[in-house]
């Protein structure tokens, strides 16, 4: 059992360091998936996270406006392709989010 004297009343609880944009379950899955690669095609992220095109588009737009995800559109032949990647800020924000989760998980 932890003695009262061990608790720093001024310490910030790790939950306050969780990123609110990343914290939402679908957005967390999107960012966690993108963290494993330099860039990923929209359909791969959709299949991995198991959401519809419209849900993924909406969540990606939220992440993009927060500066966490970068969206790049292009073509392979005549087929349109959308590539998603984490920005440097997004990658750092996710690392901090994971660090906060580890602290919470550690009790």
């Amino acid at each position, binding site marked *: 059992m932890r003695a009262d004297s061990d608790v720093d009343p001024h310490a910030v609880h790790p*939950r306050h360091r*969780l990123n*609110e944009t990343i*914290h939402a379950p679908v957005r*967390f*899955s999107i960012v*966690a*998936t993108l*963290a*494993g*690669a*330099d*860039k*990923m*095609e929209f*359909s*791969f992220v959709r299949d*991995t*996270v198991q959401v519809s095109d419209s849900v993924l588009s909406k969540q990606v737009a939220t992440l993009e406006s927060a500066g966490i995800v970068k969206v790049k559109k292009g073509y*392979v*032949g005549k*087929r349109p392709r959308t*590539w998603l990647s984490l920005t440097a800020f997004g990658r750092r924000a996710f690392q901090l989010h*994971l660090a906060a*989760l*580890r602290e*919470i*998980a*550690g*009790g």
Partner: protein
Amino acid sequence: MTPLTPEQARAQLATADILATTSGKEVRIVAISMAGVGVLLAVATALSGLAVTNKAVYVIGMFVYFTAMLTLQIWCARRVRVSARGWSLRYGASAAVSMALCGIGIAWTTNGSPSWALFAPYCVLVALPMVVVASRMARR
């Protein structure tokens, strides 16, 4: 924001670990195409050794080479949905080394047919940088 219990946090961390490794199959496709490019460069180098002595085989071989390279690039561009993290530089560097070795090999054959005892192992050497990096990428 909904407060998280330690169990929920652990579950989220486990989810993050799983999701970060889902691209393994896609990365293997990149590795296969990369090794394929290396082998094709070795074939092009070997064919240049036949340019003087056997023109017909050289011309047909180069046609097959360009068709195979084009097919591989199109297949790769259509099929690949993931760019492996941290491998772009290694891919580029190994491709540059293989292409430089291929160029040196072709230059070697311009003064006549080379000794195949030396030239055949050299052709294998041309493929090695891309094949080695591809195999490491596939096993990452």
